[in-house]
């Protein structure tokens, strides 16, 4: 469903809110993908 915007303020609030939610998804999804990508790498001891 398309949202009607009457002011720039409304447009920015709407799009920014969705963008922030997507960034939250990215912050969770990308580390998970990295764990999948490196899951079978040889473990290096860093201590």
């Amino acid at each position, binding site marked *: 469903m*398309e*949202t009607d915007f009457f002011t720039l303020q409304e*447009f920015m609030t*709407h*799009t*920014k809110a*969705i*963008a922030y939610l*997507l*960034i939250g*998804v*990215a912050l969770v*999804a*990308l580390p998970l*993908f*990295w764990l*999948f*990508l*490196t*899951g*079978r790498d040889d473990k290096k001891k860093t201590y």
Partner: protein
Amino acid sequence: MNQAVPPGKTLLTPFNIISGIILLIGGIITILRFTQGIGAVTNLDDTNPWGIWIGFDLLCGVALAAGGYVTCAACYIFGLKKFRCAVRPAILTAFLGYALVVLALHYDVGRPWRLPFPIFVSQGTSSILFEVALCVFLYLTVLLLEFSPVVFEWLNWKGARYLIGKVSMVLVIFGIILSTLHQSSLGALFLIAPSKLHPLWHSGYIAVYFFISSIFAGMSMVIAEHMLVARFLHDKIDAEHNIESNTVALGFAKAAAFLMAGYVMIQIIGIAMDNDWKYLGTGWGLWYLTEIVGFVVLPAGFYAVGVRERNVKLIRWTSFWVVSGIVLNRLNVSLVAFNWQLPLDQRYFPSFMEIMTTVFIITLGVVIYKFIVVRMPVLHGHPDYPDDHH
């Protein structure tokens, strides 16, 4: 120096015959282009002033030549010396790629004697095109200098080889800065045309899209290129390069997969920022999703599986998939989704001679690449410099 044609071997190989015919046709079209004008060989007009010579030869050429700065950054800036064997082939590909981009630009712009004008005579400092021209001019010079140790080793000019080796790090850093600038600027060129480029491809972030996609394009090109040379020029590759190429494929595939995941995320965020969701349900949206899902999400998954399973063969085949995805993206931005609102009869489709010119330029690149790697220490080390490939 190696002999290109050993005694008893003929020059009339299928490769030489086919490439010779293409070069001949290209030569004829070149004469036509520069004697009869651009209208005689192209379907370009005032509505569609940029055709495949810009969309393919320039945009794809520059993106796929990104392997040079990506490999140099990995090896010399991030200190990943395990990728050292990929540096010389990547720099050669980048140098030839950029040189052919400049050559292709001559066909589009015409009047080659005025090529130095934008840099030395009339600088349009407020134009993104000026920045692109300056970067390509400087980066092509840097690539020539970065590749010169190979030529000096081949010619056995030890003094020049020693001197250029002393400034190689400066060249690498300068090359990366220049690449960062113009890879993104090629995308920024389209910022000026929000009414012409379809909203799904046009975004305020298009410069970032072009830059990030150039990184995984360059990595994929390095992987794909090794597969091709291992198939057709295997006798020119030494054992060390062969072993290290698997490390390069695994390392670059891992980095490319993660970058592609990030690229997809910023594409989605770009759609959200412009509120372009409504277009996804249209035919254009389906084409956009084909590009993003079919040529970024899926190959990123295949890269990830290839890295986890240590399946270099899967990674190499996937690299061709990614390369074709980058070509599709650049063609979509510059041709397919450009002027999308025009009726079909006013849309651009390249003429036969435009396509043949592009084939001619690619063939020229392949012939020069082969000429160089057969003779110079690109895919194998030079005996006088056993520990130094660059």
